[in-house]
């Protein structure tokens, strides 16, 4: 990242069934992630076909996009923990480099 003053971090994004959000966020916390963003009811097309977005009367079965940013030295642990979750069920994970302006929020 070529923006002066920013601190490099790793961003991990997951699209997972909402029913698994609790387990995954617990996993994030256990490796020291200080926070995450959850977008419920995301839609799209994937390996298992189309997925509708938010349902009027069903929060439980929607897909959720979880985003967390961790210091790069912690990313490997988190990714290693998330892989068995994804291998045993549905969902996708994206790992990318990012940069933040207030690194103390993420340590």
């Amino acid at each position, binding site marked *: 990242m070529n923006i002066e003053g920013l601190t490099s971090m790793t961003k991990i994004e997951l699209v997972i069934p909402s029913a698994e959000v609790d387990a995954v966020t*617990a996993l994030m916390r256990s490796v020291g992630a200080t926070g995450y963003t959850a977008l419920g009811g995301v839609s799209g097309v994937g390996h*298992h076909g189309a997925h509708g977005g938010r349902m009027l*009367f069903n929060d439980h079965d929607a897909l959720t996009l979880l985003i967390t940013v961790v210091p790069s030295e912690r990313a490997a*642990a988190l990714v290693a923990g998330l892989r*068995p979750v994804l291998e045993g069920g549905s969902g996708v994970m994206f790992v990318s480099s990012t940069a933040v302006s207030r690194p103390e929020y993420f340590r």
Partner: protein
Amino acid sequence: MTATNHLNLPNDTVATGEPGSETRRAVIRGMIAAADRVVAPHRPLTAFVARNPLAGYERWGFDEAVARAAAEHGTRLTLDEPAFRRRHLAGIITDHDLRAALDRHVTEARDRARWSPRPGWHSLSVADILVADLYASPLAPAPERTLLTPAEHLDPRVAARVDDLVLRWTTAHLGSAHAAWSPMRDEAFWPAWRRLAARDPLVPRRVRRGIRALGPHPEDAVAEALAHWRLLGDDAGRFLRAHLAALPGLAGHVANAASEGRGIDLVDLIAVRATYERLLLPAGPDQLPDGPAPLPRASVRSTGGGRADPQRIDAVMERLGLAGDDGDARAVVGRVLSLVRPEERILIWQEALDHSAARRLAPPRAGGTEAHATVEPGERPFAQAVFCIDPRSEGLRRAVEQEAGRRGLEVDTLGFAGFFAVAMRWHDLDGDPPAAACPVLLEPRRDVGERAADAVGATRYRERLRARSAAAAVVARAKQSLVAPYALAETAGWPMGAAAAVRTARPLAWARFVEAWQGGAARPATRADADAAFALDERVAYAEAALRMMGLVGGFARLVLLAGHGADTVNNPFASALHCGACGGLRGGPNARAAAAMLNDPGTRAGLAGRGIRVPEDTVFVAVEHDTVTDRVAVCEPWSVPASHLGDVAQAEAVLRAARPAAVRERLATLPGAPAASAAIAAPDAALLADADRRAADWSESYPEWGLAGNAALIVAPRRATRGLDLARRTFLHSYEAEADLDGSALETILTAPLIVAQWINAQYLTSTVDPDRWGAGPKPLANLVGAFAVQTGYGGDLRTGLPWQSVGVGRDPVHEPVRLQVFVQAPVARVCAVIGRSGLVRGLLDGGWIALRVREQEADPWLRYGEFGWTREGIGEPGLSAAPSAPAPRADTAPDSAAERTAGAPHHRPVPVEERP
């Protein structure tokens, strides 16, 4: 980024803080998160909501889930073969059902070409031979659990000890909020257990020493166990799943507690289990057998089972009347039998049982010879009554329609989820803890309170309530403390004993006494403030969604009843299972009140008019609550009814009162110990109604009602498609008018919410019936409460999940027919296809065979069944293959015989001998 190989766990060191330990812990946590799909979270008794205990298996098709459940839990998802064969002998499953099932399951069975084994013999088809196989072949082996923990492999006594120790500690933690004292209160489970178990004199010193050596991270204890047993990769995953499957009830409760942030999770549970096992078992990895065999695979379409064994061929030959030494015939029969593995037969039987239910409950095709009432749109009806889709409503709806008809009144009944589109957290006047009054699928959108206009009266009421609660709390604390129970028994034993005797001998008199005593604290008039809690745009949006989903967008009557439901029972740990599932296991009255407040709100109506739904000014929505034990229907807020409509409400109440005997009579005909069961159907109304009232007040009654037993189908259609049919309280009835659903969004909501709730309920009843020991809550009389959140059977054992046997069976026989949910939708096929295409959730249930879907656009169209290769017509709904019309409401003095015949016809209507009452 370097990918971490999570399979190399034991190669890492376990010591806290060493490089790699954080990764290892994350991997352990991730593996347990993956393994937890072997159990489903189970809610506490106070908020019991039906759910498939094997919901994690729905990622696979039903057929494969059957094989996996057998291997991992040693359980079935269907009845066993003898039970299916008995149903065939009883006529519940017919040959037609079996052949229809074979058509779906074995491609070759669709070949109707006859084959003759020898000139002169009857010609036989592939299906003939396979039907004979279903009837007569030796039984397939019973399911056997192969997913075992090391202790279960090596020493079952140690495994039992581990289970016992783990149950003691975890239930102490889970129940600490309900106990008078607990050493684990206000502390997370893992540190509390390490602190206390290290001093437990009930375990050997080496175990205590081992516990003292554990670190602060439960993941490290799991890693240590995996290293001890030298388990890697898939074997490690199996180890974790085996520990969860060892006590699935406990694991389900822990999973639920984790989701509520109560200081315990499945990592803690496995860590404790694995630690006890490692420390108690004097064995090493070398003594473990090789890993279990791969799971048997079952497929939706039969893939063949290799050569059939001679005994099976003998049995089929004999059944078909063929000579056992006829070599040609044996060869042909053997080849046909190889199309189906013995363990696949139960899948065909299950399909046949499903088909049996579908043809009994299918709304008939209009224009057929079967009579069913049709309602012509015309004059404004006297009233509309919206009931919950709960199958119990179906019987009352029928009775109300018939009674209204007798009086020359037109009452249109509709079906909608009993939360009436108001997802709220309910705060009652009594000050009970706020509770989510909405389906478990939903988070409450707003907090709605019960408000009293008379603030002084409300304060006085609450003060009296508090005083009485304080007195009750003193007694409760005395009963729960360590020493006080002895003093309590000495001082209050006699009066409490006398009260218990009266309560047992005269439950109704006792109930009246309690009611009179509580009369001093009469509740002030209150109303639900949903019209204030929800913003105007929310009120309009939810009101429109509800009205469009139920198809009520015009032709409003002066009076629209919104009927929630609840169940009055006493001394019943499973009371919430009888309340409204769509209201989160609470009574449905508050939701009906909230919905009525929103729909009567002038602002909401103006907004609705802007969206094309004009509710006449003289239309009033009135909340009522249906008590499913007594079939009484009470107006929730009589003081909210405008004077202009008091007459209408009084007339509606008269209809509801008059409909009650017929509804009660029909229900009691199947309940153990009811007058209707012992004295046939001729018991007088008064005796029946008194018996229903007794069941609501009798603390020794284990059969207050049948709940949703018998549920088998969801019908999404206008009422005119089902009106006049006797659906035997086996169907979830959701009203739907395609014309009112402009963009198809209402149908999408129905198929992604009410359908899912119905499927959960259906799966819960199915599993509790087919394997009550594994998935049911056991017999009620043996249930011991654990901290008010679960029950055990007798002294110990796993925490029971699911429904008690008294919800699904009598004696040794199930009353509930365990069929998968049969869904009928009357809507444009293209619209249904669009929903399936968009919703992976619905698609998964359909493609996995967890539900069956049949669709037709109009009443005159044939039902088409969804399949992986398109829509097919099976004849369901045609004459002889559809629901039967209902008889006129039986009266004790007019038609006893016809009523008895009618109730005996449906499988759910099994008269129960008195002697079977426990």
